[in-house]
């Protein structure tokens, strides 16, 4: 970004890197900041939007440390990321919900509290973006993201689908949505904490059994929260999080994003270079953000989502599957906080026409460079991938596998040519029933 070529020159256009602000129509005074990187390869590549979780963390976290075109070197220069997802897509990063990153508002009431607010903002942004880039509007469109975006993604996908069916504005060619180590169905994922922790040797059987006593309480509280509760959802958040903190209390200081690692004191990762870089005056000037601060993660946005946290976002997914929209759920196997077991359980439990076939489908290796990079289970529009040797941030831990996963999924060739079927149906259950 420093050393920018002067504004408005055609050469800058050729480089295909854009940044901008979108005025949120359903707000008092909010502007959403985004990055758009044209595909490094095929100009007719699909459009992929990435949503970071937190909740309340900025998209630049993923852009610089996971799957964006650049990495930040120690001396604040940028190096190309060989496995950036712009290798296979026209790639969008949006700072949302408003209040995080360079997105800002002049009115605190614009801070979003639920998925209706989030999905409406993203939908309105997408409409304006495609109006600005009409040449992209008919491209295949995929929604991807991670962690708390396991809430945002299905909500946004449902909003796009609803808009298309009602012929609202520009028709969006939504082909699929992918959730990485997400939180989508808390009623299934929270009770999976003690089971995953026991399986991975983080807690004893006795500690597991003690935590199991909380599960009925947590499940009841989530049921009370439902899809539109308020204070009941807050209570559920407090009750159910004792399952997670109960595991962590006995897990010997493991990094809950990657149980193979330990946090150094309170430090599990060091993303501080991102803040340094984005606060460089030359970078701010290049991006046109003026004197707007960069908020890497927002505690206020996090808290504003507390009533949203325990809501079930799986409910809107079956309709999307039945209408032919693909879903990929993937999870690094060493992540505790959004572990693969909880994700696998809600995916297997989803009520849709392909449920039994999916459950019975064979588990096949996901092979990259002739080596098994994960275990894949799929049927029809639905795919579940357990990624080996990765934690919460799969594109950071397994960048090549993540890029191949994206490419294969968008080309409907995830199982790949050289996939070897090595497992029997019962092992398929393994992904779920092993516990």
């Amino acid at each position: 970004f420093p050393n920018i070529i002067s504004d408005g020159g055609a050469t800058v256009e050729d480089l295909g890197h854009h940044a901008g602000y979108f005025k949120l129509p359903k707000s008092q005074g909010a502007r959403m900041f985004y990055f758009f990187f044209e595909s490094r390869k095929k100009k007719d590549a699909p459009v992929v939007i990435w949503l970071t979780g937190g909740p309340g963390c900025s998209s630049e976290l993923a852009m610089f440390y996971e799957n964006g075109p650049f990495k930040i070197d120690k001396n604040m220069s940028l190096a190309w990321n060989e496995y950036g997802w712009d290798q296979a897509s026209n790639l969008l990063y949006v700072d949302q919900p408003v209040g995080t990153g360079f997105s800002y508002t002049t009115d605190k009431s614009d801070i979003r509290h639920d998925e209706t607010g989030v999905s409406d903002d993203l939908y309105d942004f997408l409409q304006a973006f495609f109006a600005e880039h009409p040449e992209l509007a008919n491209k295949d469109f995929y929604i991807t993201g991670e962690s708390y975006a396991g809430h945002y993604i299905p909500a946004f996908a449902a909003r796009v689908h609803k808009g298309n069916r009602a012929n609202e504005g520009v028709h969006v060619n939504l082909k699929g949505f992918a959730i990485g180590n997400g939180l989508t169905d808390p009623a299934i994922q929270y009770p999976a904490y003690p089971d995953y922790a026991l399986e991975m040797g983080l807690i004893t059987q006795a500690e597991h059994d003690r935590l199991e006593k909380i599960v009925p309480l947590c499940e009841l509280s989530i049921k009370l929260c439902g899809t539109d509760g308020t204070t009941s959802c807050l209570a559920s958040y407090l009750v159910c999080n004792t399952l997670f903190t109960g595991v962590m209390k006995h897990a010997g200081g493991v990094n809950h994003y990657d149980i193979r690692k330990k946090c150094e004191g309170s430090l599990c990762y060091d993303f501080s270079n991102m803040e340094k870089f984005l606060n460089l005056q030359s970078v701010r000037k290049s991006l046109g953000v003026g004197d707007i601060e960069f908020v890497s993660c927002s505690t206020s946005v996090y808290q504003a989502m507390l009533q949203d946290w325990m809501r079930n976002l799986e409910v809107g997914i079956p309709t999307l599957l039945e209408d032919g929209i693909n879903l990929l759920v993937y999870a690094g196997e060493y992540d505790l906080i959004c572990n693969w077991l909880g994700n696998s359980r809600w995916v297997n439990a989803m009520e849709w026409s392909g449920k039994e076939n999916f459950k019975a489908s064979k588990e096949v290796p996901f092979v990259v460079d002739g080596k098994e990079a994960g275990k894949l289970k799929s049927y029809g529009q639905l795919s579940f991938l357990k990624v080996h040797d990765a934690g919460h941030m799969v594109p950071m831990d397994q960048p090549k596998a993540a890029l191949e996963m994206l490419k294969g999924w968008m080309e409907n060739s995830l199982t790949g040519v050289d996939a070897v079927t090595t497992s029997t149906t019962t092992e398929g259950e393994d992904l779920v029933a092993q516990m």
Partner: protein
Amino acid sequence: SSSTLLNDRSFEISNLPLSRAEKLIRELNLFPKLDVNVIDVTDSTLASAEEEVPSIVERSFR
């Protein structure tokens, strides 16, 4: 009530939402100057230009 039921001190202050949000940020070694990007309309040059701008303003950068 569940904490008394389970004799579990997980309801300590460190687990309340704000603390969890701050812990998340500390774990990533991040130090945002603001806890949220709400700008004061009166003193921002940007805000004063708000009314006339189109819904999306984009620029190319290198």
